[in-house]
């Protein structure tokens, strides 16, 4: 997963880099390992590297990024700076590209295994840009040949921006308004809230699967990939964990889904307890509505030290544990002598959860009943969400009872798959549930 942003204003007097920077800050939860921001003035200006947005795009560096158009990304992948997006293609036509998700195959292109993913994408794209045709058509033709689940934004050197989603609509993308006449394309609508026009009725709208939005200095229009998918396959994990709760994904409020999940957990996994506690940040809405539904009071169980780290997407176990331990200092008074429902969004390997339960018991919790706001993760994600090898996935190998023993909980229950689908409130076959089921929307 990656957080993408592209800002297109028609008035060339705007200096856009700060808008891009704060837009990326709003998407920081989608990736905290590297960041990149590129602007178009008389040429491309770029700034990218390892770390958080504010560390990479510092105030002084943002000042040097000239121009009125920009493109940027944050991602959770450990990468060398040369592979860090935005990727820039010099020939045959100069353009910059950011991608979320994963292109799993490209028709009529022989994947060069000696090169990395990024280099392969650029080589294939280069092929489609040969000849006299318009760049926008070349970009469209390239993505028409791509398989996989992805969202993209391309900015050309002559000031056209092309943004779109794969035909299944796995990864999210939205369009908002900015600065009176411009558009913001971003992975999530929270970026529009942060830098865009503040209208009481959000001007942000969903970009549909297979839809492509084109901006040129003379026009802005919608077109579509010429390929059709027999079904949509919106990533269900966006609703559970990836997206921010103030965002809309595929026109559905993430917060609404998280509250529905909390209610479902209260229905499916009721237990006689004294308090409900959510693991910050993601599981807080689950806990709030679990409490409202069950009548069991909610408590704030943790206080954090340092930055808001998204521990689950940290690349190494050490980093993840560091994240959890700093983020989750248990507030003794909230747990001492209490029977607790502890809610978390998902379980991958189970060791950070074990750590949390241990910390709570150490501070005097009498019972800890763990409820998870998603089904067991049993399989990989072909579309770029980092899931460890299958032999590391606790839910693939152990049943709920065993997991309870491993993590030190009194009881342990996942949300059922049906419960998840009902909470998202769309037909099951319009979602990608691959990480929970091992069944994917396209043939391998």
């Amino acid at each position, binding site marked *: 997963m990656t957080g993408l942003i592209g800002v297109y204003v*028609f008035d060339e*007097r705007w200096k856009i880099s700060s808008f891009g920077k704060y837009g990326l800050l709003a998407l920081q939860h989608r990736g905290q390992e590297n960041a990149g921001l590129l602007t178009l003035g008389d040429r491309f200006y770029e700034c990218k590297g390892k770390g958080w947005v504010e560390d990479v795009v510092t105030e002084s560096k943002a000042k040097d990024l000239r121009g009125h158009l920009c493109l940027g990304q944050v991602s959770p992948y450990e990468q060398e700076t040369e592979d860090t997006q935005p990727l820039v293609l010099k020939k045959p036509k100069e353009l910059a590209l950011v991608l979320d998700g994963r292109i799993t195959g490209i028709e009529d292109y022989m994947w060069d295994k000696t090169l990395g993913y990024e280099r392969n994408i650029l080589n294939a794209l280069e092929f489609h840009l040969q000849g006299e045709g318009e760049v926008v058509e070349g970009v469209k033709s390239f993505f028409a040949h791509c398989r996989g689940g992805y969202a993209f934004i391309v900015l050309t050197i002559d000031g056209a921006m092309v943004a779109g989603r794969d035909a299944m609509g796995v990864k999210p993308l939205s369009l908002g*308004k900015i*600065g009176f*006449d411009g558009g913001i394309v971003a992975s999530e609508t929270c970026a529009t809230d942060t*830098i865009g026009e503040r209208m*009481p*009725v959000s001007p942000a709208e969903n970009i549909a699967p297979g839809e492509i939005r084109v901006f040129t200095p003379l026009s*802005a229009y919608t077109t579509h990939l010429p390929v059709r998918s027999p079904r949509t396959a919106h990533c269900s994990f966006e609703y559970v964990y990836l997206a921010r709760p103030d965002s809309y994904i595929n026109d559905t409020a993430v917060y609404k889904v998280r509250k529905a999940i909390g209610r479902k957990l209260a229905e499916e996994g009721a237990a006689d307890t004294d308090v409900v506690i959510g693991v910050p940040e993601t599981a807080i809405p689950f806990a709030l509505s679990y409490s409202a539904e069950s009548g069991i009071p909610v408590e704030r169980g943790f206080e954090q030290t340092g930055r808001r780290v998204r521990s689950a997407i940290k690349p190494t176990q050490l980093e993840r544990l560091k994240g959890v331990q700093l983020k989750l200092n248990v507030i003794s008074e909230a747990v001492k002598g209490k029977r607790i429902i502890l809610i978390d969004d998902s379980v991958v390997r189970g060791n950070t959860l074990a750590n949390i339960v241990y910390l709570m018991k150490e501070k005097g919790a009498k019972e800890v009943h763990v409820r998870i706001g998603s089904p067991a993760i049993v399989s990989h994600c072909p579309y770029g969400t980092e899931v460890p090898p299958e032999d590391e996935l606790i839910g693939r190998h152990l049943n709920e009872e065993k997991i309870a023993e491993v993590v030190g909980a009194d009881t342990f229950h996942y949300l059922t798959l049906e419960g998840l689908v009902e909470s998202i409130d769309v037909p099951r076959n319009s979602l990608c549930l691959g990480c929970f089921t091992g069944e994917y929307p396209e043939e391998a």
Partner: protein
Amino acid sequence: MKVLLVGNAGREHAIAEAFERSLRDVSLSCLGELINPGIQGICGKTGGQYLRGKINDPLVVADHAEKLGVDFVFVGPEEPNFHGVPDELERRGIACVGAKRAVAEIEMSKASMRDLQWENRLPGRLWYKKFKSFEEAVPYIKEYAESIALKPARQAGGKGVKVIEDFQVYLQDEKRDLKYSHAKTIVDEHMKPYQDMEYKLLIEERVWGPEYTLQCFTDGRCVKPMPAVQDNKHAFDGDLGPETGGMGSIAGGLNLRWGVKEEEASILTMEEYVKSTEIVEQMIKAVQRKTGERYHGVVAGQMMLTSVWGPTIIEMYSRFGDPEALNVLPLLKNDIVDICEAIIDERLNTVELDFNEKATVVKAASPEGYPDKRELARGHPVKVDEQGLTRDDIRLYWASVDVQDGMYVTGGSRVVEFLTVADDIPTASIKAERGFNHIHLTDGWKTFHRSDIGAPRCLGKRIELAKLAREIYMYKEKKGILGRRLTWIPGKGLMEAG
């Protein structure tokens, strides 16, 4: 009966069509700067002439009117009003439907319009400041970081207005820079052709809410409103792109209803519609009191339902809106000659306006390059399949077009406007989309249009926006603080803007 119509845009085409429908045996002539083939056709059919000439020159217009021996003149656009065409006609004893120079001031000078509102404490007045130069505005822009609308102090063909929302303090430097730069552009560029105005720049508080145009006939004694219309100013779908003269507009019933049925959702309530009419009427009365002149013609409130006031004037028009005229005139059941005569004789109160209860959608096709790079948009040969349009039940209005060597070529602005009529706005919107299959520029240059005008999603959002604005202004009304802006300034105490 002989009538001379002044102007050659889509709006005048709709006015010409209303005269063509008249049962009073009208022979319609038209004076335009370019040749509008639609109006030209109507002039031919009714036995009138299509003349080419300077519509802003009062002597030219009056000479033509005299030569033709017309019963009255109908002025379409605003500039002839600003140049005193109706005044010259009156001097020569020729009847005219058109606002005289003094009363057209409510449109021509955006600063005078606001002055008038504040002098008379009229409802729907926005907080503003006027400046004679860029330098005069600099200290103000520097000191106050807030959301504003920057406007040329004069009506400048709808160009130059920019709203800069300045709420996010972390982006305030960039926004202030653009405020400076745009204020300078207004003074140096947008106001450059107009040396007839002391003030150059207007800064107004930025408000939000759904916009609408309330067009009225007036004889100076009473104001007769037509159905409210909502125009779409941004060039591209989703309200993106630079501001244009209007890419298309919708109307449904009197109060912008989804459809013709009473119970359907609407952008305005009937109370707000009535209130808006009262506001326009108060403006007319105020400008007549101030100038001692009668207002004969069409007046329109370019309004917004804001959280500050409810119905609020953004700007005034001293004429029909374009394209808004197209939404109402084709539905007008009255004979337009009867209305014009009642205006001239100041007995408009005896006329009951009657409109077909229908929903209308107008969509304009513009050549790429419009509105900011008109040199690119100009001079492309255009072909329209009129039979195809008739088959699809779409009415064609020629807008910015000229006839050169027997060929129609684009004039740089919106080239044609399509009108569709249906029982609800979304149906009319879908119908209008088909129109774009029947127009193309034969040299391969592209045109664009707004597909979202009147579409359910867009209309739904506008209705929702109106609801939110309504909740807030009604709260203020209940508290007795409608239109007031109270702030607590630490160390200074309770302050009120305005």
